[in-house]
């Protein structure tokens, strides 16, 4: 046991590629994703949409109404002097949407390069239109809403809410690729065939390779978290014990997934291709980028099957930015750990069994 752990550890630390994947790629990936998603959310501190507005002289008094509406609804209105300036704002991405108001119509201006994000903007179009219409018509408002924000955990900014999702994707990707690559390499260069003739237990071999990667991934997650806190000026109320538990169990599951993927193909390249596609599917179908409430039913169903979805929820819980029932947290961790161990053990058995042929 000690010998195999030492040997695999030495092989691991000599492997610069794995070190690069496990330590550097999560930080890079988390930073890029963090900034992109924060940008879509309208800022790093609050969910908001920047809207540039041009009001014809007749409607200039509307400015104050819009300012007060914006404060409560998360809309940030920027007033411009003419329609061409308004279009320039939208075109340059300085605002996500433009509104031009003249005597008979209200024109909403979008930017085609924002693609599907325009769907999100069209959701608030109707709300703005009705508010304007009502104000202009002088319709008395008998019923209004009083938004009350519910605090949960620490006072979080948008970016601090996004970071756990980006972290989850980055760490899981690094772990799956790292073990899939290592096992496929052992398989391709004939090491497994040689090990087959030794009294070494199959499960123990795969477990020893996984163990180093698990420790490295946990260290990498702490490093990624500190980097996020430093770069995004976020302050988390980290509950270290639960944080380390969820990172360890989900990394165990990721390693298990990497191990089982490596058994599917003999060639390293094919394994990497399949791993890349599987991770892309997992990443896009998770709820990290878009909330459940705007997903079509089939996508919601797939998102609920993705481990990233649960890993992200647990991470948010351990970082003190959202709440979760303790029973749910325990269930997820037990499932992750059990599934991970089973996958690692099973892939050890399978991969050595395949060498017999």
């Amino acid at each position, binding site marked *: 046991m000690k010998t195999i752990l030492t040997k695999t550890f030495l092989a691991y630390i000599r492997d610069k590629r794995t070190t690069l994947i496990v330590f550097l790629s999560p930080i890079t*990936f988390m930073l890029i994703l963090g*900034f992109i998603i924060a940008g879509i959310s309208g800022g790093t501190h609050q969910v908001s949409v920047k809207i540039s507005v041009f009001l014809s002289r007749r409607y200039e008094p509307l400015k104050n109404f819009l300012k007060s509406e914006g404060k409560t*609804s998360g809309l940030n209105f920027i007033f411009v002097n003419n329609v061409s300036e308004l279009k320039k704002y939208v075109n340059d991405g300085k605002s*996500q949407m433009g509104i031009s108001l003249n005597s008979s119509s209200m024109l909403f201006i979008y930017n085609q390069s*924002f693609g599907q994000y325009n769907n999100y903007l069209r959701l608030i*179009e109707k709300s703005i239109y009705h508010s304007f*219409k009502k104000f202009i018509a002088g319709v008395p408002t008998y019923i209004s809403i009083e938004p009350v924000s519910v605090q949960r955990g620490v006072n979080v900014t948008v970016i601090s809410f996004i970071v756990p999702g980006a972290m989850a994707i980055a760490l899981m990707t690094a772990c799956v690729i790292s073990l899939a690559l290592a096992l496929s390499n052992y398989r391709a260069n004939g090491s497994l065939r040689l090990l087959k003739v030794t009294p070494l237990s199959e499960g123990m071999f795969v477990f020893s390779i996984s163990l180093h990667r698990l420790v490295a991934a946990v260290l990498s997650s702490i490093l990624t978290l500190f980097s996020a806190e430093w770069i995004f000026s976020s302050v988390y109320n980290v509950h270290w014990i639960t944080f380390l538990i969820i990172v360890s169990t989900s990394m165990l599951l990721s390693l298990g997934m990497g191990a089982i993927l490596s058994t599917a193909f003999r*060639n390293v390249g094919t394994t990497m291709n399949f791993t890349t596609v599987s991770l892309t599917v997992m990443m896009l179908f998770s709820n990290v980028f878009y909330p459940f409430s*705007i997903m079509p039913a089939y996508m919601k169903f797939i998102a609920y099957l993705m481990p990233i979805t649960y890993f992200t929820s647990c991470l948010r819980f351990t970082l003190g*930015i959202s709440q979760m029932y303790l029973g749910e947290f325990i269930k997820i961790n037990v499932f992750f750990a059990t599934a991970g161990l089973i996958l690692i053990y099973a892939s050890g058995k399978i991969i050595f069994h395949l060498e017999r042929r």
Partner: protein
Amino acid sequence: MKSVWKFFTVHLLSDARNKRALFWSLLFPVILLVILVAVFSNLGTTSSINFKVILINEASKSVRGTDYAKLVVNAFRNISYPHKNAFFETELLNTKDVEKAVKEIRYSKADVIVVIPKDFNKAVMRSIFLQKLGLSFVKAKLKVLYLPNSASSRLACDAVESSINEINERVFSPKDRVVDFSLKSETLGETMKSPTYADFVTPGITVIGAFTTALFLIAPKMAFMRQRGVIKKYFSTPASALALFSAFGFSKLFLMMCQYFLVGSISIALGSCVHIFSLASIIYYIFICVVFTLIGLDIAFFSSTTTSVTALTSVVNLPMEFLAGVYFPLFNLPWYMNVLVKVNPLWYATNAMRQFMGVGLSPSSMSMNMLVPALWGGFSALFILAMNMLKGEWT
């Protein structure tokens, strides 16, 4: 010329036998396109929205006149599932369950809570009465509890506000006061009428496809040839370096062109109307393929082994793809991220391909769309020549 043709057929046959080559050059872009269209086509459309709203009616029953609280409850029911065009899933809870409802919000099981307060009916009646007398009045307020940092909760709060505005307008507005105010919309840079998501994403996928082919096929293959001394062996023959590299490049360009038409055809089968046969888009695509091939060769000459090529390409690939604006729009980025976007050749290539394929106008100028990738190509070529001068592999 004969040696170029021979090398070309050799590399092409070698790629045809190589599953990895076929995967990255033909299959991967198609899989990516299909996944993206499946994921994002219906995202955020009215049919896919479903906000979970908890409604708590604390209002005491109206003894005389209209029960406005009930009117609000019914209005919410009418825009909730299973009604047609609904976007709420409303759950009506008892007044005792406020704590439970707040817990649901905190634990992300619901998006917003709408509380109709005890004196709601009285407040509405008082406002109507005072307004009719021409006196100032205080609006009756519905409490909407939401999570400020959750996009879903924020959107649900806006949707509730919009619904309340509609109730105000429909129920309380005298007909003569409703203004006929038309709603219009315009999409800047739109050249195709109502482009679908498949239209929008296809030009980006062609760019990403060419880039991944360069990173995951060209770079490792050239690194392999260097590592195993294949290049040195080639140069012991009368074949020139130019013949070898041009044939190698042409064979990959051939694969990239097959990829372009395959992605375009699949996209059209998915309902897209992109102009894949536009001459401008084909010429520009060849140009970026040459640039990406040079970048791939750069990586191969920079790294000493195929293993380090794999590591380097894995680290380079995703950041460049995400900063190309193919998957997500890029705005509100800090200046240093904007710098990365503005030097990313994939961003310019995606913009240009969208314009050439007739999807929309490029947000960056066409001269920049040519210049930045050309600079990348130029520097890559210089780097390869410099590496050769240092290591003397071709001589």
